[in-house]
């Protein structure tokens, strides 16, 4: 994995190709689990001025709750500046707009 590209299709993250529910308590592969186990540790490793990219190639199913909890939730956890600089690749345009909307709404509420 390139340091600044988070590839969902990579072996240890393949389970997120089928995005699950919002919270861990609601089922496997949740947005909360993805945020805490994958997204936030990766953001912490990124340099402060580095622009990260999340690559959704091969994703079979998107879940709005998953995306909101992962990206909106990361903003609520204090990663707003890094999240707002992220780029999203190989994603259905509808969901790319949804993610941006979730991030902006979470930023507004901060």
């Amino acid at each position, binding site marked *: 994995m390139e340091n600044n590209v988070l590839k969902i299709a990579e072996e240890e993250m393949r389970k997120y190709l089928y995005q*699950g529910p919002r919270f861990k308590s609601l089922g496997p592969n949740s947005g909360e689990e993805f945020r805490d186990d994958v997204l936030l540790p990766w953001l912490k490793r990124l340099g402060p001025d580095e622009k990260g990219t999340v690559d959704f190639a091969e994703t079979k199913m998107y879940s709005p709750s998953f995306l909101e909890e992962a990206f909106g939730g990361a903003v609520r956890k204090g990663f707003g500046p890094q999240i707002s600089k992220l780029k999203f690749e190989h994603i259905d345009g509808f969901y790319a707009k949804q993610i941006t909307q979730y991030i902006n709404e979470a930023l507004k509420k901060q």
Partner: protein
Amino acid sequence: MERQAFLDKKNRKRIERIVQEARKRSRRRLWRKYHPDDQQKKRLISEEIVLPQDLDIMDDDKAFELNFALQKAMENSTIQLDFRNVQRITLQAGLSLKAFSDAYILRYHMKPLFRSPRLEKIKAVFCYLEIREYHLNCHTHYKDLDCWHITSFDKSKDEDIPKLLSEEIIPKCLAERNEQENARIATAISETLFNCREHAYNEDSPFQKWYLGYGRYPHSDMYHFCVCDKGMGFRGSIQLRFKEKFLLDDSNIIKEAANGRTGVREGAEQGRGLGLKVAIQNLRNVGGMMLILSGKGLYMAGLSETGGSLETAYPQRRTSLEGSLIDFSIPTSYITRGNQDGE
């Protein structure tokens, strides 16, 4: 001597057979003592409710009759439901029956008292729904019931709903549609199923199942997916968090949820109320329509013939539905027109 030996052997065999039969009878008597069969159950029948020809949840009058029968039977285990006259059953009514049957078994530890339908086709529906088992004529093929199927979910089990939908259910049912459209349909349905897990039941509720049914009616160019639960319904779930919304009628409560106006307040560990809204957007993108029934409310959202957004909160119904029922109608062929709702 040989003849005597032959007779002895024959007698011995006869005696063995008689003993075996006596044992069988005795076992059967014991079995009946602890597992009353239909004959014995009939002796306990206090009342019989005859169900109408047409079992339909969407039609208010027909739903009223079905609901009345199911409620009565749930209150009193000696009431028998008579299905002999039933000639048609919709997918939504079938799911309600299935939920009723499971809740009944949980409560009374036995199957509900049914008088079997006369029509083989309705018997086939009962078999599909796993409500009853019948030995059906295997040569009979019902085209319209061909893809009827039902999946049940339980709050205590950690099922991978998205994977199940994407890999098994959707490809089986919507084989001829394109992958991107199918992914959107799967998203809309899985979001609704997650909502059921999150909001339909309290932790202490004894019955915690919800169902996904799918099928197609004859001469129809629509597929139907239907999600049904027997939980607290939209009113129960939303009022629990928004006390001020208790003045709204059931249809408008559903409308609030469908428009994403039921997000929780800051700091609460609950969803943000966007699931249903996005599910509707996804359905519109594939030319579909969603009908939501909960309590006495009925709400419809979808795509109009001209391609615009359509949403209606209908006046209150006479029938109050326990839990909620969400019906997705998806055209068999539709070319994605891009993102609706200005998305």
